[in-house]
């Protein structure tokens, strides 16, 4: 019985853990990977790690998201649920190089 309760208690966390996390790394003012394929109709967590010595602002008008990332810092943000299609994003402070696309299937 006790075990059953424990399982029920843990269930919400198990669901949370099943949420898919995607990681983007910023290095030399570029996103790695610069193309990310994600499933449609799902809420996703995007982890962004900035390995550069300068701050960056993640920005995507397509996703309606913007977030500052300190030098050497990392942040997370939520996106979706999204319809299938491609969504561009970039680093506002280094627009020439920091570019990428999220492909939703």
């Amino acid at each position: 019985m006790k075990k059953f309760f424990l399982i029920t208690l843990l269930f919400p966390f198990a669901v949370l853990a099943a949420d898919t996390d995607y990681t983007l790394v910023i290095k030399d003012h570029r996103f790695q990977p610069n193309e990310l394929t994600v499933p449609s109709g799902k809420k996703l967590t995007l982890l962004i790690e900035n390995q550069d010595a300068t701050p960056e602002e993640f920005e995507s008008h397509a996703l309606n998201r913007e977030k500052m990332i300190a030098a050497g810092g990392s942040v997370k943000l939520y996106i979706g649920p999204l319809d299938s299609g491609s969504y561009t994003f970039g680093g506002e402070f280094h627009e020439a190089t920091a570019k990428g696309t999220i492909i939703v299937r």
Partner: protein
Amino acid sequence: MFGTAIIVFREVLEASIIIGIIAAATRNIAGSRLWLVAGLLAGLSGAGMVAVFTDVIGALASGLGQEIMNASVLGIAVLMLAWHNIWMSSHGAALAANARSAGCEIRDGRRACSVLFLIVGLAVLREGSETVLFLYGIAASESGGRSSMMVGGLIGMSLGIAVGYTIYAGLLRVSLRWFFSTTSVLVLMLAAGMASQAAHFLIQADLLPGLAAPLWDTSSALPQNGLPGMLLHSLIGYDARPAGMQLVFFVAVLLAITLGMKWAARSQRVTAQS
């Protein structure tokens, strides 16, 4: 250099427009200028602090500190703008007559002036910290062309300030008959737009549901990175692909402030008659 100018322009624009409108709206309040300048300086030093502690703030609330801070700053600014507009609608007659009873030196007026201080301070704090970080990034980078980028930053900043000043100067030319309604509609729009932006940050942090996101997509007709889109974003919080919840916030704040202004204007009339 050109790219730098555009980025800094974009960051400075919003604060500049807010200050331009507020400065015009309060031109008849004696002593308001001093409070505006004080707000500007406080906002700038606050922006420096936020920039230095970006990493710390970002790590708060398990990585959602930035969204929560932005939403709070916007939320407080909305409340202050609402208060300001309602106060103005009950003191409109006195201000139009340039009466001294509406200056910062009276008790009621002092509260109105500290609200000005907060509005300007918060606007500069939010937009300024991003500008500081960007310029710091340029200064810290090892690559060449650093000074030309700094020049670009200065050009962008001057252009942003010029837009705010143009709005200010333009508003001062509006005839007295239309002046109060013009500025109060602008302040109303600013407040509603900020509420929508606050909702945007809470959705990004997953603290609010998006409700039908995006509600519409006007990114090809009126892109957010074009000049008209940028201006509209600063004035009414325009988003090319907004979430439904943003519109809910926009409309709710619009209605609440309008009702508050109506109520304040009416109760003033009642007092004047008795």
